[in-house]
């Protein structure tokens, strides 16, 4: 079985796809930092950031729906922030009774809550765009050039390569488990929780051993091709003038966002 559900890259012939991966990584991070820096209720700032996002989206030819659909990912986490609705002092806007609590939503609390959601929503969309327009190996190169330690980028490269191979193995194991634990419909199959946990643990152990042995074989394959402890890579990317201009443009826009966010 081929496991492609993990691919996030979306091939298109767009301006953004051709941009140097370093630029894309840096701009994404600056954008997300900028969102975090915008004060609560900085509506102009949020609006401007959103316009920038739409612009970037347009330059990717992926369509607004592409990021919109995937941006709901972080929504469940909003639950964590729900308490700010009630906890921040301000004018009451809504009062209700829930179970054993009398809850009062304040205006300040509401502003805070919505601001957190907007920041998160804007940020996650840019991150989604980043991996949709950049092949992951290029992203790894970008990290290398941005001085992320080589040992980490190498582990990440291996992780990416073997992610697919090992998840295939997991699914084979899971399927084998399912095939052997056929149950009468309506009854729960296969022993108690402990027993089921033990089976899962054995699968993890088995997967570990296979992976361990695989790493030995990979090491041999590397050694056979001249590896002796130091890894060499080529730099396949070169900054073009459009890359510099795009970076400058993005920084100006993000700076303007920050100023607008403070009025």
């Amino acid at each position, binding site marked *: 079985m081929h496991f492609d559900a993990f691919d*996030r890259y979306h091939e298109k012939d767009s301006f953004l796809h051709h941009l140097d991966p370093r630029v894309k990584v840096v701009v994404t991070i600056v954008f*997300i*930092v900028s*969102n975090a*820096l915008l*004060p609560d209720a900085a509506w102009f700032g949020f609006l401007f950031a959103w316009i920038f996002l739409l612009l970037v989206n347009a330059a990717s030819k992926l369509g607004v729906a592409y990021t919109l659909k995937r941006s709901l*990912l972080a929504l469940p986490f909003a639950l*964590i*922030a729900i*308490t*700010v609705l009630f906890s921040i002092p301000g004018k009451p806007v809504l009062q209700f009774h829930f179970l054993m609590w009398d809850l009062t939503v304040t205006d*300040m609390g509401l502003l*805070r809550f919505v601001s*957190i959601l*907007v*920041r*998160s929503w804007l940020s*996650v969309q840019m991150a989604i765009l*980043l*991996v949709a327009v950049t092949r*992951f190996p290029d992203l790894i190169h970008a990290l290398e050039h941005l001085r992320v*330690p080589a*040992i*980490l980028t*190498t*582990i*990440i490269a*291996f992780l990416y*390569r*073997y*992610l697919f*191979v090992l*998840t295939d*193995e*997991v699914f084979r194991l*899971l399927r084998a488990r399912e095939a052997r634990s056929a149950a009468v419909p309506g009854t*729960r199959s296969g022993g108690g*929780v*402990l027993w*089921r*946990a*033990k*089976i899962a*643990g054995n699968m*993890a*152990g088995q*997967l570990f*051993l296979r992976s*361990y042995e695989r*790493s030995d074989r*990979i*090491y041999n394959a590397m050694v056979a091709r001249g590896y002796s*402890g130091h890894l060499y890579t080529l730099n396949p990317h070169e900054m*073009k*003038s*459009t890359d*510099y*201009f795009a970076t*400058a443009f993005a*920084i100006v826009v993000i700076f303007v966002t920050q100023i607008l966010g403070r009025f």
Partner: protein
Amino acid sequence: MLYSPTPMHIPDGFLAITISIFCWVISAAVIGVAISRTNKSLGEKQIPLMGVMAAFIFAAQMINFPVAGGTSGHLLGGALAAIVLGPWAGMLVMTAVIAVQGLLFQDGGLVVMGANILNMGLVTAAVGYGLYRATKNQPKGVRLAVAGVAAWLSVMTGALLCSIELWLSGTSQLAVVFPAMMGVHALIGLGEALITVSALAFIMQTRPDLLGAGSESASGSSSWAWVGGLIALVVVLFSPLASADPDGLERVAINMGFINNGLSAPYQIIPDYTIPFLGETALSTIVAGIVGVIVVGGVVFLIGRGLKAKSHS
């Protein structure tokens, strides 16, 4: 769902920038030490080993088992990674796993990644390995039992840190986030403990050499036992305190200047061209001015480089 995000992966937007940066600094420092330690102590075999092990942890997180009522237990892997690979290599492996989850799947944010690495990768590895290391010369049964406790505590520690970060960011009230996170993770931790123990039991049976003397697993020094024990102790002591008197803690944090009672978030670094730590002073205006100059200078530099660089051919 193949890939189930846990409630511990914080997305961007939920942490104050100061907290994000603070966590990044700590994580980067620990990762730096981990890199220099692994570079020093481990052979050239280590690179492919850590790489494949990172893929292993990633894939192993998909192994689940039904618990009850549609919920299922699965693995985070910090403790397991550190126990089988040694603490430093375990930390690097977990860092890579969390980085890929954030980068590729947006499971956890980018700017808050430092916090996620700290919570789910570094601290889990330290606690998990530390407690397990303390049982070095014990019989197998004891080692496995302690590994289970260590795995459970590692998850709890991560959850604790996570709730503190959310609280200090003004995203959640401690009185709510703390019991909620700890409650949920007490259950998640049980799944973690069960899988970790039975995976270790399986490895001990089939390849005892991988966990015995001279293996990567034994590579951590005995002081890890202290590190693990200490962190565990802090968790155990802090938890009743936080549940009994969250408001008290909140007051302490306000008094110490960590939080601003949520009225103005601590992440307003340049509100109205003044720096909050510096107040409305001339200095503050100067700093804001310098930031402006740096931005303009940077933009000019980029445009200059752009004009010089080879055009799109």
